[in-house]
């Protein structure tokens, strides 16, 4: 090993350039990976949060299950409730906390009106960090997610003005790393009034019948598909989204980012891998005589192979460590800059760091195979008598 260190140090500039190639790749991989990790946590958490129920929308509502453009009347709640296999159905009115703020990269902040008597436990697993959850019959109170509390500097007892209405914060939720962190839960009645205020002309229905969706909790999640089918059969002009479909929709978001990771990996492989191959081939060429000497004194083929593989692996590992360090530093700086707004875009996980390091090391080793084989297969006599 010490010889491998000595050997890569023989040509410091070339070694530095080679390592630089790996650093760039691993740097990209770490930063992109941290982006994807964050998104994956959002998505996995979102999956867990949403997958407990069937969402019923107005058939004309925009796709997706947040803040649909058309409301759904609540008179169908009782009809769905009566269907076999349905534990309970509850109206939910979900809208953007601030209509001006359209979600960018992160999930948007949401205002969610619920009926506490039918919506909460055990199916929706929300826990408070401070204060308590909503209770039936309350008005003008809110339970907010951890990101909202942080961003607006809110604690239990504070007043939080949403859509020009004051709400008393009665609870702050535990951090979930996903949707509920950015949701302010309010009594359904309050949400309905806010909703009507913003688009008063849109409905003929009575305000207290408004909802953007009906959330249906089945007795057994396994029956969700059948229940969803029954709902669309039984009730006109609705669309029922099953937990599996919700999962699919959420999952699609990760595909793009996982493709970016794959892209970054491919670039890392090309840039880093080729530079290692090039350097090691040159290194073998320069050290033909030395390989001949080692073979003459009895080094078996495998020993020569291992020596050069060790060097290539070392190049990969050093590049990996530096690339991870640089990537992690950038991620930490960027996260620190956006932390004030309650949003962090990157998430560094030990798994990600380990994966990046292993990627660089294995890349170095793989790139070393061909040069090492060339070295190991040299004819001892030809190698010994070569110039240099």
């Amino acid at each position, binding site marked *: 090993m010490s010889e491998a260190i000595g050997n890569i140090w023989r040509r410091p500039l070339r070694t530095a350039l080679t390592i630089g190639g790996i650093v760039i790749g691993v740097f990209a991989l770490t930063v992109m990976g941290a982006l994807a990790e964050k998104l994956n946590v959002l998505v996995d958490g979102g999956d867990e949060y949403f997958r407990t129920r069937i969402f019923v929308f107005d058939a004309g509502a925009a796709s997706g299950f947040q803040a649909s453009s058309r409301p759904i009347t609540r008179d169908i709640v009782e009809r769905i409730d009566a269907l076999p296999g349905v534990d309970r159905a509850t109206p939910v009115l979900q809208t953007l906390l601030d209509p001006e703020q359209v979600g960018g990269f992160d999930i948007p902040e949401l205002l969610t009106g619920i009926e506490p008597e039918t919506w909460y436990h055990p199916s929706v697993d929300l826990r408070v960090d401070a204060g308590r959850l909503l209770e039936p019959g309350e008005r003008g109170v809110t339970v907010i997610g951890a990101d909202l509390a942080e961003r607006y500097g809110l604690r239990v007892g504070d007043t939080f003005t949403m859509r020009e209405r004051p709400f008393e914060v009665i609870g702050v939720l535990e951090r979930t790393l996903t949707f509920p962190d950015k949701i302010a839960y309010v009594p359904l009645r309050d949400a309905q009034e806010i909703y009507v205020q913003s688009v008063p002309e849109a409905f003929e229905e009575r305000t207290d019948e408004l909802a953007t969706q009906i959330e249906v909790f089945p007795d057994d999640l396994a029956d969700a598909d059948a229940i969803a089918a029954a709902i669309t059969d039984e009730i006109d002009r609705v669309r029922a989204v099953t937990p599996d479909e919700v999962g699919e929709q959420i999952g699609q978001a990760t595909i793009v980012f996982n493709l970016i990771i794959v892209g970054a990996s491919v670039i890392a492989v090309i840039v880093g891998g080729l530079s290692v191959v090039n350097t090691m081939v040159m290194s073998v060429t320069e050290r033909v005589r030395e390989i001949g000497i080692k073979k003459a004194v009895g080094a*078996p083929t495998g020993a020569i192979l291992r020596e050069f593989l060790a060097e290539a692996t070392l190049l990969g590992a050093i590049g990996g460590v530096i690339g991870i360090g640089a990537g992690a530093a950038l991620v930490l700086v960027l996260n620190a800059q956006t932390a004030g707004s309650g949003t962090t875009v990157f998430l560094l996980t030990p798994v990600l760091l380990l994966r990046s390091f292993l990627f660089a090391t294995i890349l170095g080793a793989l790139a070393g195979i061909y040069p090492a084989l060339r070295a190991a297969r040299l004819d001892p006599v030809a190698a010994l008598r070569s110039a240099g």
Partner: protein
Amino acid sequence: MMPILVARDLSKVYRRGSSEVRAVDGISLDVEAGELMAIMGRSGSGKTTLLDLLGCLLRPTSGELEIDGRSVIGASDGELAAIRRERVGFIFQEFNLIPTLTAIENVLLPLRYGPRRPDGLGRASELLGLVGLAERASHRPSELSGGEQQRVAIARALVNEPAVVLADEPTGELDSTTSEELMAMLTGLNRDRGVTIIIVTHDPGIADQTDRVVRLSDGRVIADSRVAQPVV
């Protein structure tokens, strides 16, 4: 005395296009343990090829070769490496030390590839002392003179306690004074420690210091003469 090296009808044929070059052409040779032997011949006479064959660096095209009672014919690459590692020591004209390793690390090189020997470092130090370089153990080749480098190479050739030491023009790169010192060292090792040494040379002055001179021409032995050594 039993022969430590037995060659029977040993040949090495190179094909270049349609023509054949018989670099070594049916050489038979017995080398006894403890012999100090010179192989002489003009450039192109096949002496270096013969040395490469005896040292298991090359595979013969035909013939028989036994080293220390072990047949080399049909051995795999790995087995040939093991024979070189355990039974043969090499000294080259250009010293051929590894530039990044210190003197003592160079001496230890052959042991690196064999089974771990607890006494390896002690033995390497002792050999460096024997060639007069105990205080240069941690110097790299670039910090040593030519003569010193060749003495490191001698220590390296002896570290595995070989059956035979093969030296290819060992004084070729040295001035005459250093040359004499080096030959004195080799003859001393032969006389005092019974090391079997085969020296390839074109220098009659070197050959004169050995007990036996084998002359080659066109890949064949044309003379094999033993010099009567004075009995002490």
